[in-house]
């Protein structure tokens, strides 16, 4: 996983609640046994007039300049609810979005973001509305600046400090660590636990 760098970028408002992972990437767009090649399927049913011809829907925000270069997505509550498909995050990441700001997230989707170098930020609706008001005036000029090391968002003359993120998630994102490698360092702990656990539950082998 690539380390997460500080981001200064265009924020695209997709201010709907309950945007589910089927909408982020419909199942039929998950065509190969692979984590790659999924950006084309991102928001396919909203993004294209016809998913077959790939004719773009000009009304969809991520098709419009300058939002087609957005690195940050603003959205409504329960973003990424529904299916566990990690393809939703792989597609978002590959398309170029590195930060998603919403009042709440689907729990599996949130975990999937952390595992793939995408930063999910929980902010209350008022703060998101305030950011949206600012960036909508001139999305190119009015960029958002996100510093994960210090957990700070800067926009306009405002600073949002200490946005919520688990310390360990922060460390994984900043260092681009691989969790399997980290856990395998604790293998003797796991072995010892497993032996005792199986002693109590011998049928679980």
């Amino acid at each position, binding site marked *: 996983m690539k380390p997460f760098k500080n981001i200064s970028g265009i924020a695209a408002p997709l201010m*709907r609640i309950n945007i589910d992972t089927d*909408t982020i990437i419909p199942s039929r767009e998950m065509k190969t046994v692979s984590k790659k090649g999924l950006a084309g399927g991102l928001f396919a049913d909203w993004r294209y007039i016809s998913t077959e011809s790939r004719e773009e829907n000009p009304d969809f925000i991520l098709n419009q300049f300058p939002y087609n270069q957005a690195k940050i997505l603003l959205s409504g509550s329960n973003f990424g609810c529904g299916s566990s498909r990690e393809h939703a995050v792989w597609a978002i990441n590959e398309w170029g979005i590195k930060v998603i700001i919403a009042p*709440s997230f689907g729990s599996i989707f949130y975990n*999937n973001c952390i595992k793939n170098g995408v930063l999910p930020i929980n902010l209350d609706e008022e703060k998101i509305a305030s950011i949206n008001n600012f960036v909508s005036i001139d999305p190119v000029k009015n960029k958002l600046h996100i510093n994960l090391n210090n957990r700070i968002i800067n926009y306009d003359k405002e600073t949002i400090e200490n946005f919520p993120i688990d310390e360990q998630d922060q460390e994984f994102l900043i260092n681009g660590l691989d969790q399997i490698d980290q856990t395998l360092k604790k293998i003797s702990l796991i072995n010892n636990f497993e032996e005792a656990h199986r002693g109590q539950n011998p049928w679980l082998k």
Partner: protein
Amino acid sequence: MNQTLFEKIWNQHSIKNLGDGNELIYIDRIFLHERTGSIALKSLEERNIDIRNPSQVFATIDHIVDTFPGRGDTTLMPTGTDFIKSLRASVEGSTINFFDLNNPNQGIVHVVSPEQGIALPGITYICPDSHTCSLGALGTLAWGVGSTECEHALATNTLIKKKPRLMKINIEGELPIGVTAKDIVLYLISQFGSNGAAGYAVEFTGSTINALEIEARLTLCNMAVEFGAITGIIAPDQKTIDYLEGKQFSPKGDDFITASEQWRNLKSDPDAKFDKTINLNCSDLSPYVTWGTSPQQAISINGSIPSLDQLKESSERESMIRALNYMGLSEGEKIKDKKIDAAFIGSCTNSRISDLRAAAKVLKDKKIAQGVKAICVPGSSQVKAQAEAEGLDKIFTSAGFEWRESGCSMCFFAGGESFGEKQRIISTTNRNFENRQGKSTRTHLASPETVAASAINGRISEAKNLGLES
């Protein structure tokens, strides 16, 4: 003492506190399917990482396989075969318990798992599928993960997790005839929202839950994720123990006696603390149906779609306008008697033998309305065989339903089969999201009884007076 059921299982599986609230949690069993499991296995192969305990891993084919009679590896979904073959290649030569298409144990992961005693009380269990929470019905600590977390569990038998907040949902009252676990969960989500349990693990308790059979509990816990919960769980009781006895992967002989003793003690202590409690009474509940594109947009079958001015938040109003437009419905409209084009019985929510029996009771000696396309997809090959042994397949086909091989089928559209644009479908599935069952399809979630009754009338209908009392 004063521990919740969730905490007891969690603490028994906590290998180490890693600081900052994170714990290294031991995972007992892992179930994979061809859609996301194939990717996790391939990814580990590419990195040359071994599966730590293949015998604790299970796999089957359910998501994108066709369900037509005589189906094989070739799928209507253009690249579906690749997923099937990739999974098969990855498990070949390993001791992973694999239920391939010709295996009598094949079926939807969350149907096969309880049916074969793979999910057990007090164990930790994951699957790269959001409806893994279903298995909480047995007192299993089970939740859905992404592919990357699944790889971690395959490689290490652990996950790094923060203990979630805990919610108790206590449900009292005897359910009226024709009202089911599906109606309870739709009612719950309609009252508290589809992120009503965001960040929580939910324990269901109360007299209504005690009275539910295991398969109904599976339906209830199945939709905990639609309530935003990390998982749902129900304390095991004598019904659970009876249900699991003799299953293929359940403990056997003396082990079963020992295990049963452990399971009997798996319940929240009387003084256990929950972060939140919801109390519901379901003695006057009626069947519930969704009208919109989120499971929270559900109403009593005798009710009307809300009016826009009943909603406080502007985001909810916008969501409602969009949903009404998508569904071809108006605010204030009655849901009953809305004409339907299709009826679907299947999915990990409602495709078990008790679901098929309930639907068959309504369908017996009746015909579905002209012009309605109706399909029944049993949840597993075992459910299908059992239903056929009881003659249920004949009831379905005589009524005009198609009778299929088991799989996830038209719960979602992977490019294979759909009902068609703007078709109105009454469905026993779990998600009514935009385009979920195919481009522009209009899904109404309901119980098997309601789906069967609606198929007969060609309109959204209650099963009451259609054979349920007898």
